[in-house]
């Protein structure tokens, strides 16, 4: 019996620490500046526990029943704390207020626990042993929780479900206490009903936890969020509205299923159809497999090598049924080799040759990505293109980022390539630009594969005409040691935002 009581101490101590860790982690995830968040949250929490301990002296009757109600309250508030905070972040302006109110409330409740329990147990132990045992198990519980939290809970369960799990433990301790202290309780059944209700609510919460964090995302995106995943490199979000599925990487729109065919047909066919009998194709970036889908429309293709940094992304697009339907299962085709690697070092360490290369990287929003748009990169890339081959580069919008676009053209020219800039209108993006580059002179292809929805042999040539508001402007070449492109890009898009 005494040992079983001490197990309760162990469990409630663990619960108490978990709620504190969850609040601190969530605040640093959502607000950043982890040192500040953790310090202030731990401070407020410890202070609130002190307040709770002080208040415990005003409880002087029916200690056991009060303790059981207290456990139920801790379980409810603590268990839902993480979900509440997610929702507060997504739907209200008052995240800070909710955060600190919750921390203080949980802190007060947790502060009440141990003093109350000690008073309940004081009949059964010597005072000396009581203090020693209770505090030992209290600290052991804290140790257990602090190890469990980073190793198991955060990676396996996530924050919302971890909180609920420990809420259930609190409620479990309450229910169990109705049996342990049966002799000291009068209306036991009422208490047990209360316990059952709280447990049911928390269990229901577990079912909803995923929906809750999705709901938080939903509020950030206009459409219904159908999938989210945080990978090592990015946050992948898929949304759906009627039959329109959109992919966002770090909140940047990558495609809309309604018009992506325009983008991907334009990316691939003007160049690839101009390499008769092309056998080996390289795709850099483009882990969604949509460019590969277009490439596989040529019967001469023997191999497609897709190099994309993010293995989660390529796995998702090779396994998720809806996405597989969208890319026609291209990533699981036997001719396609998926390589998860950083493109520049990968090119630098092999000597493979390709008849056609598709470069579909994210826009040059920072100096790291900017390296993939430099003379250094294109010089290396050109060495991997066969003599009659072409390479094509996704080059941001010649309309919204005009100087950036023409900077990419200039950069390709600087490494001795002949460039053929073209553009296409994609409703979800606006005007979008590409540059075809190679060592030969380019003629638009006379024939395209069958079944295209946007391009035909008669309209390819039109893509190469630029209306007045998108024609060439002066720009310097982008070099590794002087990345002008990142500066152009920032300036171009800032001008749009104003």
């Amino acid at each position, binding site marked *: 019996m005494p040992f079983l009581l001490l197990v309760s101490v162990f469990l409630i101590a663990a619960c108490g620490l978990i709620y504190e860790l969850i609040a601190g982690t969530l605040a640093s995830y959502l607000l*950043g*500046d*982890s*040192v500040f968040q953790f310090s202030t949250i731990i401070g407020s929490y410890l202070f609130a526990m002190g307040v709770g301990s002080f208040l415990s002296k005003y409880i002087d009757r029916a200690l056991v029943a009060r303790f059981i109600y207290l456990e139920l309250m801790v379980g409810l508030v603590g268990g839902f704390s993480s979900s509440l905070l997610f929702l507060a972040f997504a739907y209200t302006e008052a995240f800070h207020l909710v955060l600190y109110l919750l921390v203080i409330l949980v802190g007060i409740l947790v502060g009440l626990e141990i003093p109350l329990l000690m008073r309940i147990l004081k009949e059964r132990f010597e005072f000396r042993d009581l203090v020693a045992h209770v505090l030992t198990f209290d600290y052991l519980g804290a140790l257990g929780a602090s190890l469990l939290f980073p190793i198991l809970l955060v990676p396996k369960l996530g924050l919302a479900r971890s909180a609920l799990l420990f809420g259930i433990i609190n409620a479990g301790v309450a229910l169990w206490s109705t049996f342990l202290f049966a002799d000291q309780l009068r209306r036991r059944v009422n208490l047990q009903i209360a316990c059952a209700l709280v447990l049911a609510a928390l269990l229901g919460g577990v079912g909803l936890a995923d929906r809750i964090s999705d709901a938080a995302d939903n509020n950030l995106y206009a459409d219904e969020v159908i999938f989210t995943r945080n990978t*090592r*490199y990015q946050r992948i979000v898929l949304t759906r509205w009627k039959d329109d599925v959109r992919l966002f990487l770090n909140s940047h729109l990558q495609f809309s299923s309604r018009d992506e065919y325009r983008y991907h047909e334009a990316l691939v066919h003007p160049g690839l159809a101009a390499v008769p009998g092309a056998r080996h194709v390289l795709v850099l970036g483009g882990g969604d497999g949509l460019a590969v889908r277009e490439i596989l429309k040529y019967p001469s293709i023997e191999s497609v090598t897709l190099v994309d*940094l993010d293995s989660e992304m390529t796995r998702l697009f090779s396994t998720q049924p809806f996405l597989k339907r969208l890319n026609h299962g291209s990533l699981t085709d036997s001719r396609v080799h998926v390589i998860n690697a*950083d*493109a*520049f*070092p990968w090119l*630098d360490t092999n000597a493979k040759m390709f008849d056609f290369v598709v470069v579909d990287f994210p826009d040059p929003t*920072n*100096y*790291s*990505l*900017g*390296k*993939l748009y*430099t*003379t*250094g990169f294109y010089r290396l890339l050109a060495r991997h293109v066969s003599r009659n081959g072409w390479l094509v580069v996704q080059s941001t919008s010649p309309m919204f980022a005009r100087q950036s676009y023409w900077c990419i053209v200039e950069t390709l020219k600087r490494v001795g390539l002949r460039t053929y800039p073209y553009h296409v209108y994609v409703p979800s993006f606006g005007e979008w630009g590409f540059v075809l580059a190679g060592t030969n002179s380019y003629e638009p292809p006379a024939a395209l594969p069958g079944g295209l929805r946007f391009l035909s042999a008669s309209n390819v040539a039109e893509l190469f005409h630029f209306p007045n508001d998108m024609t060439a402007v002066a720009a310097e070449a982008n*070099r*590794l*040691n*002087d*990345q002008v492109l*990142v500066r152009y890009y920032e300036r171009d898009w800032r001008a749009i935002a104003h």
Partner: protein
Amino acid sequence: MNRRLFLSAGLIGLSSKADRRIEGGFVFEDQKTGHLLRDRKKTLPRPAREVRVPVVIVGGGIAGLSAAWELDRRGFRDFVLLEMNPRAGGNSRWGENTISRYPWAAHYLPVPDHGATLVRELCQELGLLKDGAWDERHLCFSPQERLFQYGQWYEGLEPTGAPGAHEQYRRFEEAMSGFRVSGEFTIPMERGGKPSELDRISMAEWLRRNRFDAPGLAWYVNYACRDDYGATAAETSAWAGIHYFASRAPDDKGPLTWPEGNGWILERLLAKLGRYVRTNALVYRIRKDGPRMRVTTPEAEYSAEVVIYAAPTFTAPYVMENAPRVDDFEYSPWLTANLVLDRWPSERGFEPAWDNVILRSPGLGYVVANHQSLATRSDAWVWTYYTSFAEGAPAQNRRWLIEHDWTYWRNAVLDDLARAHPDIRQCVRRVDIFRIGHAMIRPKVGFIWSQQRQAVAGGKGNLVFANSDLSGLSIFEEAQYRGVTAARRALRRISRG
């Protein structure tokens, strides 16, 4: 580096709790070998072997290796290079871990302009310069520099200042272009330099006389002196201070740099010249022996026609009889540290650059060794942290440096970095520290055009000095120039017989 500033940083450091375990230690500890020279009589063994060879080079830093480079490319192969350490390289040594290579001291070479012919010849030989164009893979990637001020990072190194400061920067830049076209501030310095009144005043005094008083500019110039000479602007000769700003007209945006810093050049020199190099060969005695010279190491005694002395010049009196006077040669101590990070610390403002400097910190900032990587992503980094002990007497600072243990210096480094990265202690896994007692010659007021420096540098006979300290400017280009010049003198001497 200044004691009081460091202690104040310690207080900031105290506030961060829950530190993780950080490993590391001191590296090299050259002073232990060096001090054998001071106490040589008792400890060093007498060599068992005697070797006759026309030329002996003492010291395997860039200067010694450049002497070897010149002898070798002139077709002269009959020489040895003696280096006391297990690895040659001196201040251009480097290290490596699973994340990256990294420098231990010298980490870049400014893009040499057309006047620096020897450096350009070497660059051509190494494939850095082809048909008049620099290979951009070896030039520092964007962004090159950033400065931490007002609680966040800004692009570039010049502090943004009060109104009017801008005008002073412009005027300063103009004054420096004026010095540049004068042709007196060249690399190598011997090419255009001549005795000058500017060597008689300090850089701080020159700023004062020319009414440059914007605090940001004063900080910037003082930083440059601490960074390049390990001395404050108040002690640095104005000639040397100006030389830094006025000596280069590069034809591309630089500098040249590699993860392992100038270790990249070192390794290529060693690949070619390694067969002449004898490591673990501490030269503890050099004396005349009739027309020849005797050079003693614990393992062998060499009898040579000419000795090229490319070890730091101040060591001459410990090694040779009748050494020239070298008491004007004063050196600044430095500390460098390589930090391994497995998380990028939280920070605000401009993106991480190659060189990252914290305004008004006692250190000189840090260089990200794996900045020069082709990858767009990385999940671990090596930072090389630098600080020179510019304030106070060098000897006292050297004692301070040696007296304290690794934990003390590790804390000093982390406390300094915490000014810009409060959670640095949660991101760092390892800190290795290099204490360099006599790291850099100090071009203090009067030294550059002193009789003593010119006498040692221009010395004749069969003992030729060659260390970069002969220029009073501690840079790769001067080390190379001194080494090559010494080699040419040695060859002339030998052909005379």
